[in-house]
C-alpha cells in the first residue's frame, strides 16, 4: 500500500535577516553590544570591550542591555543600531 503524505513543515526557510557588509577594519569604528542581561554576559562583554579597544583599535563601544532576556531587543535599542558600525548580540547564557 502506498501512502501519499504531506510535508508538516512550512516548506520554505524562515525569513532571515541578511548579514550587513563585513567591515574591512575595526580601527576607529563604533561597536555596539546588546546583552541579554544574564550574569555570564558581564565578564564576557567587559573582556571583549577591552580586546576591541586595545587590540583592534575600536574607537567606541556602546553597551546596551535588553529589559527582558527572553524577548527581542527593546525598540529603543534597535533604533540605536543604525549609529553603530558593528553589533555583537545573540549571546545567551
Amino acid at each position: 500500500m502506498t501512502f501519499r503524505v504531506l510535508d508538516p513543515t512550512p516548506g520554505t526557510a524562515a525569513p532571515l535577516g541578511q548579514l550587513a557588509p563585513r567591515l574591512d577594519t575595526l580601527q576607529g569604528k563604533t561597536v555596539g553590544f546588546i546583552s541579554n542581561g544574564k550574569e555570564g554576559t558581564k565578564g564576557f562583554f567587559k573582556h571583549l570591550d577591552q580586546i576591541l579597544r586595545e587590540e583592534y583599535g575600536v574607537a567606541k563601544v556602546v553597551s546596551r542591555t535588553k529589559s527582558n532576556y527572553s524577548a527581542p531587543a527593546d525598540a529603543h535599542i534597535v533604533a540605536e543600531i543604525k549609529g553603530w558600525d558593528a553589533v555583537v548580540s545573540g549571546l545567551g547564557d
Partner: protein
Amino acid sequence: MQLASRTYDADSISAVQELYHSNGWTDGLPIVPPTREAVEACLEWVMMPPDQLIGIEPVRGLAITAEKLAINAVMAGCLPMHFPVVVTAWMAMMQEEFLMHGATASTGGCAVLIVLNGPIRLELGAGGTFNALGNSDRATAVIGRAVRLCLINLMDVRPGAIDRSTLGHPGKFSYCVAEDEEDTTWLPLAEQRGVPKGASSVTVMAAGAPRQLMNEWTTKPEEILETFAAEMRANLRHYSIHPGNYALIIPKQLREHLQAAGWTKSDIAGFVHERARIHRREWAEVGKGAVVRDRGDSVYPAMESADQLLVVAAGGPAGGFGAVIPPWLGNKSHAVTLPLGVCVDCEPPKK
C-alpha cells in the same frame, strides 16, 4: 480543497515512519500518516480553508496556517473533532503576552500546559479524573502532542535548534488536562478568567513540570493550602524567584475538604498569595548565597497578585495529593485563555 504542502510517496507504514523520523519531523514516537484525506477532514471540521491564517508568530514573523496545523495534528493522532482545540491553543500561544518564542526556546525547558474547560471536554472524552496529569485519555494526549509537533515543525523548536532546553520535562511530549467541572462546586478556570459560562475554552501556560505534594492528615483548608504554598516556596528557593502564573491542581479528596468549608477558588488564591513568598536571604540556605547580596530582607511573592493563580479541579477520586505547576520564568510569559469558536475569514483574536 487545494492543499499547498509538498507530498511524498511511501511504500509502507514503516516507510512513512522512517520518512518522518529521518527528516526530524517527529517527537521520536510513531506518527499517524498525514494524508490529504485526513488533513482535509480536520479543515472541514473547523470550516477553514487551508490557507486560513491562524496567526503570525510575533518574534520571527512566521505565518501559521490552518493546513500546517492540521497536518501536525493528524500526525499527533488527532481526529477532526480534536482540531478546534489545537487551533485555539495556537491562537492563544501567539498572543504577545505568552512570549511563545522565549518560552519555547529557553534553556529553562518549560512545556505548554493546556487546560480545557467547557462542553468540549465531554464531547471529546477528555478526562479530568484518574491520572489527570498523565496519560488519562486519548483527547488530552493527542491535543498536547499536536501542540508540540506544531512547535517542532512550524517553528523549528527542535532540541538543539530553537529549543535550547537544558533538561526539558516529560510534559513536552504532551501536557494537557481537562478540568473536572462536573465534580466540583468551583467556577471553571476559564470562567474565573472571564470566559462566559458554558463556553468551551483553552488556557495555555508556559509551565514547568508538576511538583506533586501530599497532605492526608488534615481537613482544615489553611493546613491543606499551606502544603501547596510550601511547595511554591520551595520552587522560589530552588528554581526561580520571579513571580508569575502558578497552577494548582487539586484532586477530589483535598477539594472536598476545601469545598465543605466554603472556600472558593478566589479564597484559595488569596490565602496562597499571602503564604507563598520568601525572603531573598533564604537563597543562602539552598546554596545560592552568592546572589543574596545586600537584599536579604527583600520579600518575593510567588505571584504579583492573587489572580495570577490558576486553580484547577482535576485528579482521581482518592488520594490526598495535589500538584503545583510552576511558571517557566515568572511574568516573562502570561497564561492566556481563549474560547473556542468556528472562525471563517476572521482576524486572529486580539485580547
